[in-house]
């Protein structure tokens, strides 16, 4: 199958069930909301060593936030409820509570509640105040610029992590351009993050290593520096490979994001083929077949 002359491999991306939460952060202006969001979602590219995968889902107009100030929506994904609880507490506590003028709210309507302000209130040393507004409980913690307002809990839902697209290109410029276009399209889909730097990862991995202590190691089959070896998957014209990893609140969102990214990337000259990472289908619950997701109507 070809799309704009780009070969789409008959393969699938293998994704996993994860736990996710959305936190809405507001501040006096969008700059400070973004500062809080960037800090809270920093060092969160992969659950392998970061504890969670996180990113800024979208900026939110003042008219659509709980307190009428500009904000950002953050998504956090982890492999377990326990880990997600820990990550939310630490990241909201260290990066949002600390950010001038910020406030933090639950961003999902339903789900198992995870503690947020419930744990952070103790920073108030007894001067914290609880308020119930519209059936939702908030904590007001005195801080040096006024008070930090934080919703008591934030709902957690089952989600999908590890959707991916692998772009194989003639050169580095084409691979990067295709990846950038894909990420721009992916980020327009609600409920999605691409957690790596700029949404793109160059160090795609395979399961296992010759070193027993490592659970994952470089995806040598797609390293151009190892092209020519028998196990290489690259042809003579393929000189650079980049990957985009996608986490989403639902499988439908991940599929829509992958399709949007695929279509956008395939408009770049120099992109030769698109493939996806999987483990033979035995590890992940979700299989996103590249050719099938392209047949679905584009996300509006």
């Amino acid at each position, binding site marked *: 199958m070809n799309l704009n002359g780009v070969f789409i491999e008959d393969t699938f991306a293998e994704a996993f069930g994860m736990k996710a939460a959305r936190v809405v952060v507001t501040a006096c202006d969008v700059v400070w909301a973004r500062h809080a969001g960037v800090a809270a979602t920093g060092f969160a590219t992969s659950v392998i060593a970061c504890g969670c995968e996180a990113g800024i889902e979208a900026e939110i107009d003042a008219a659509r936030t709980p*307190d*009428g100030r500009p904000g950002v929506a953050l998504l956090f994904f982890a492999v377990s409820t326990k880990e997600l609880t820990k990550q939310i507490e630490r990241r909201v506590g260290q990066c949002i509570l600390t950010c001038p003028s910020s406030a933090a709210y639950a961003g999902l309507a339903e789900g198992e509640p995870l503690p947020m302000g419930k744990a952070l209130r103790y920073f108030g040393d007894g*001067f914290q105040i609880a308020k*119930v*507004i*519209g059936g939702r409980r*908030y904590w*007001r913690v005195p801080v040096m610029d006024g*008070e930090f*307002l934080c919703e008591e809990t934030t709902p957690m839902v089952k989600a999908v992590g590890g959707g991916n697209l692998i772009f194989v290109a003639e050169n580095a410029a084409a691979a990067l351009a295709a990846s950038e276009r894909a990420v721009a399209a992916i980020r327009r889909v609600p409920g999605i993050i691409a957690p790596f730097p700029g949404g793109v990862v160059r160090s795609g991995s395979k399961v296992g290593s010759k070193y027993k202590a490592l659970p994952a190691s470089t995806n040598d089959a797609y390293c151009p520096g190892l092209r020519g070896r028998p196990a290489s998957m690259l042809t003579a014209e393929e000189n650079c490979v980049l990957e985009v990893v996608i986490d989403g609140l639902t499988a439908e969102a991940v599929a829509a994001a992958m399709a949007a990214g695929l279509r956008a990337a395939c408009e770049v000259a120099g992109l030769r083929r698109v493939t996806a990472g999987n483990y033979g289908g035995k590890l992940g619950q979700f299989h996103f077949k590249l050719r099938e997701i392209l047949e679905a109507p584009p996300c509006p």
Partner: protein
Amino acid sequence: MSLRLTLHRPPPGRISLAGIVPNRLAALAMADIERLPLAWGKETPALGEFFRVAGAPGPHLVFEGMDARFCDVARGMAAGECEIHGAAGDFVAADLLGGRVVVRGSVGAFAASGMRGGELHVQGDAGERLGAALPWQAAGMRGGRVIVDGSVGARCGDKMRRGEILVAGDAGDFCAARMVAGTLAVAGRVGAHAGYGMRRGTLLLLLPGAAPALVPTFVETAFAADVFLRLLRRHWLATLDAGGAFARRAGAAEWRARRWLGDLASDGRGEVIHIV
């Protein structure tokens, strides 16, 4: 479906309407409803002696031609809607658990006392101790929302524990006295000793002009809880009837506020916020 109870004989004295709530009447036949006993001292006259019963039992109960001698109206109601045309006596919507009570007139003392959920909307005035604790109780209102289009008497919100009381008119003396938590907002004037003995909670004063005369154990803070006020205001504008008396006052203009902390003679974590 709506059940209509129309007063055809004025009560001889204070009569309790405890238990005459939609969630209880819905399961009864019309004849059984007419035979329900009311409490009048040691006597138990049947409901049908005072009210003509019409319509069909369901989630909506309407009292017509009501009189302030009827107390305990909608007391302990758990669900449904209760509409009262005319005045009602003491303990209206006391111990309310859920549903909505609308009084198209004024109510007596201790309305919403012990309320835990639901909504009481009084289109006239409310007497003293709205949402307040009874003398032997540790806490008054514990949840839900009360809206009063008119004014309220003394000791409104006394020992209030949770929920919100929104008063479009004036409030009497000792408003929010001994308040434990929750939100009490007054769009008109408040009497003397507002917030006396307040432990926690928020007393919000919406009448622009001079600062409220508080007891000396309240101290003005440098910070006015802007984010909290934004959240609260947006919640009210989203959930209150825009044409209602309180909503018109609350939505009048962008809020700028002064804030006092107190009562420092008590727990001292309460706040009085004056919208200037």
